[in-house]
């Protein structure tokens, strides 16, 4: 081990596998028409299990990860956003959305080559003010695309706690899915297959619970994976959480990370302190996380990386882990109606949904992570690019401080580099590290 190194380290074995799965997603979406397939667009939170009822050759593009992928390429992102502004849309709107619109309106900006492939239909969900409106604007410009959208803002739900969902709220969402199934049949001319839908609902439960279990492995010291790596792994569920092709990849990742824990393999070999971040990072500036490593600090993830596509519950021993699969609790899914209800119930418990109702829920979850993952502090990204996930963030800061967790904030934008001050952010990190009693190793 080199000087300053406290733990052994090595690359993740499943890294290439995960990267390939991600690339396949975007290429499949682009090329599926040539094979007679269907493509559709919607948000990463869309209740996508339903669309698998149309067949195995139906491919989606999820708007937020797509925006993030474009944002990683600063030239494409800037070109897209400037186009959007030219059409009269405000600069303070969701950065992913502005990039996405720009990509639709601008030639040659699909990061995997060519023009943005126009979808056959739009199937979205809505909890943040932008979600349904995002695609309403797309239809303003591409009026031939049929669109439907499901309202999922039905109330808070945190399994294993006192925050319970009301049955009529689950039914409200499930009924919309049943309506949407009929709409999908009518729109595509394909018969809706209940068996395939049920299979996709089960797959989503497996994939999202599994992701939570992978994140729970990061409770180990040293942390087997760091947040920058997690961004390349969590994205699989943001792309197609109900796709059975993702399950073996996630299972391999789980075994890989578990093995690292067993062998004491660290993501950051000089790990001396542990933090978490919050919300999307400034995608064009992921080097922030590498900068932390110079202080021997690992970011173990965040509520965003854990809870955007991980479904959690409070276990019997009081700790957080992947939500128990419905059939392990005796729920057998036999009908379309049951599948819709289970899928609605599952999705409504998404940790990232809860703070839309009150910041106290997010503070509660973040305080839990701080304790169970043994953190020394929290970096809150005051993200000007996302009104939804920055909601209540100032109250989260106050709540965490009250819980005794050191907090630093930095202001930025996940997709618009014009709103990120790299030098100032690094300076704030330096100051925060100093308050945590840390010095640079290199």
């Amino acid at each position: 081990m080199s000087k300053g190194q406290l733990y052994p380290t090595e690359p993740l074995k499943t890294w290439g596998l995960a990267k390939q799965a991600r690339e396949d997603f975007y290429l499949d979406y682009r090329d599926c028409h040539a094979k007679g397939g269907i493509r559709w667009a919607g948000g990463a939170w869309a209740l996508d299990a339903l669309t698998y009822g149309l067949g195995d050759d139906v491919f989606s593009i999820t708007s937020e990860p797509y925006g993030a992928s474009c944002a990683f390429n600063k030239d494409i992102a800037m070109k897209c956003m400037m186009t959007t502004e030219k059409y009269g849309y405000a600069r303070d709107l969701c950065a992913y959305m502005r990039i996405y619109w720009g990509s639709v309106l601008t030639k040659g900006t699909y990061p995997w080559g060519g023009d943005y492939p126009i979808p056959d239909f739009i199937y979205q969900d809505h909890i943040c003010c932008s979600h349904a409106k995002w695609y309403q604007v797309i239809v303003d410009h591409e009026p031939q695309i049929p669109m439907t959208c499901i309202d999922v803002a039905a109330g808070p739900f945190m399994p294993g706690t006192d925050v319970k969902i009301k049955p009529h709220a689950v039914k409200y969402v499930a009924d919309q899915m049943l309506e949407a199934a009929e709409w999908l049949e009518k729109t595509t001319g394909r018969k809706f297959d209940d068996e395939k839908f049920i299979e996709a609902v089960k797959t989503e439960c497996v994939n999202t619970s599994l992701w939570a279990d992978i994140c729970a492995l990061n409770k180990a010291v040293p942390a087997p994976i760091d947040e920058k790596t997690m961004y390349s792994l969590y994205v699989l569920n943001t792309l197609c959480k109900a796709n059975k092709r993702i399950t073996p990849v996630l299972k391999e990742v789980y075994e890989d990370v578990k093995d690292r824990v067993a062998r004491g393999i660290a993501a950051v070999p000089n790990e001396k302190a542990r933090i978490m971040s919050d919300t999307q990072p400034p995608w064009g500036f992921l080097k922030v996380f590498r900068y932390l490593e110079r202080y021997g600090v690992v970011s173990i993830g965040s509520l965003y990386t854990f809870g955007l596509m991980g479904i959690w519950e409070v276990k019997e021993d009081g700790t957080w882990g992947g939500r128990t699969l419905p059939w392990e609790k005796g729920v057998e899914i036999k009908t379309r109606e049951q599948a819709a209800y289970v899928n609605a119930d599952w999705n409504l418990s998404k940790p990232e949904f809860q703070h839309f109702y009150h910041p106290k829920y997010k503070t509660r979850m973040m305080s839990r992570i701080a304790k169970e993952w043994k953190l020394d502090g929290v970096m809150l990204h005051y993200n000007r690019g996302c009104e939804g996930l920055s909601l209540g963030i100032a109250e989260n800061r106050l709540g965490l401080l009250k819980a005794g967790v050191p907090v630093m904030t930095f202001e930025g934008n996940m997709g618009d580099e014009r709103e990120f001050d790299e030098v100032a952010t690094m300076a704030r990190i330096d100051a925060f590290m100093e308050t945590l009693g840390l010095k640079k190793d290199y």
Partner: protein
Amino acid sequence: MGMEVFKDIYENRHKYQKEWKEKTGSKMIGYFCTYAPEEIMYAADIIPVRILGSHEPQNVTEPHIFGMYCPFCRDVLAQGLKGRYDYLDGIMIAQSCLHVRQAYTSWDLHIPVGFSYYLPMPHRVTNAGAKPFLRQELIDFKNAIEAWTGKTILPEDIDKGIEILNTTRRLLRQVWDLRKAENPPITGQEAIYMVLACQFGDKREVNKLLEEALNELKTRKIDRETGNRLMIIGSEDDDIAFINMVETICGATFVMEDHCTGSRYFWNQVVPQEDRYAALAARYCERPPCPTKDWAQPRDRLVWALDMAKQWGVEGAIIVQQKFCDPHELDIPAFRKAFEAAGIPTLFLEFDVTVPLGPFRIRVDAFLEMLRQEDLF
């Protein structure tokens, strides 16, 4: 009586509410958005009071709401943090935009009140399931009010609440019809004062004032030129200073508006049916929508606003938005395009807490000159 009474309630809202509370002993609930079901509060003899900002610069909300959210929500929260609504017994919100939701949640966290309620008002209001969902949420809200007050709310109490609100709505609609006249007997500013008085005052009293005002307006002639007939469209707008400037200095009249401190608040009534809660749910789902609840293609609100513009003989539309107001920002390009296509020119203005009268006057004057096609030289 004159129109001054409405202005007085607006400008002295806190004095009015404190005195009213002392006089009647009624509980008061502050609400943050006009999707709040006021009928249920009146059914329990609770006076609902809208919480609006004060249009004054403030420095108390920075620790609570990140600066990228609209100035309106921060102004609203500031009222609570400064103790100006200290007579409220409770607060509630019917889920609307992200921004104002933060004002509610921060109020809930930091300003102690005896009752606090979050009602998940559906967003997809045109969906078949929205009304049954809201119906149950309204019953849950009623149950919560009962648990808090210890008073059972009977069906006839709900009828009473519906009657009070429907009377307000009916009277305001009658006033609004008068604004169609070639020389409207009421200015836009006076009309907005009326709506705001309804949001701040006890409607049982304000309804009487509205009736008196309506009788007066039927024969009223005001000593001013109507000038250009304008419509104001956009997010929450009790920016009286702006409306006053346009009407008194620039020489135009607002004859119609589309915002929640105006027509959107009262446009449709509760249509009575045996199931009172279903009737209430239908009313709130069918009202002219806030943009966050309007996902239709074409937009329901746009279709409605264009129709109003035609019926009220609007020559130009001023589209205003609170800075950072995402739901409106998402609609504005479509609105401008549709209004221009219908031959109604638009002027777009972005508002903050205070109104920059000078710069806005220049822009409004230029807009009106364009409407008048004046030969300047």
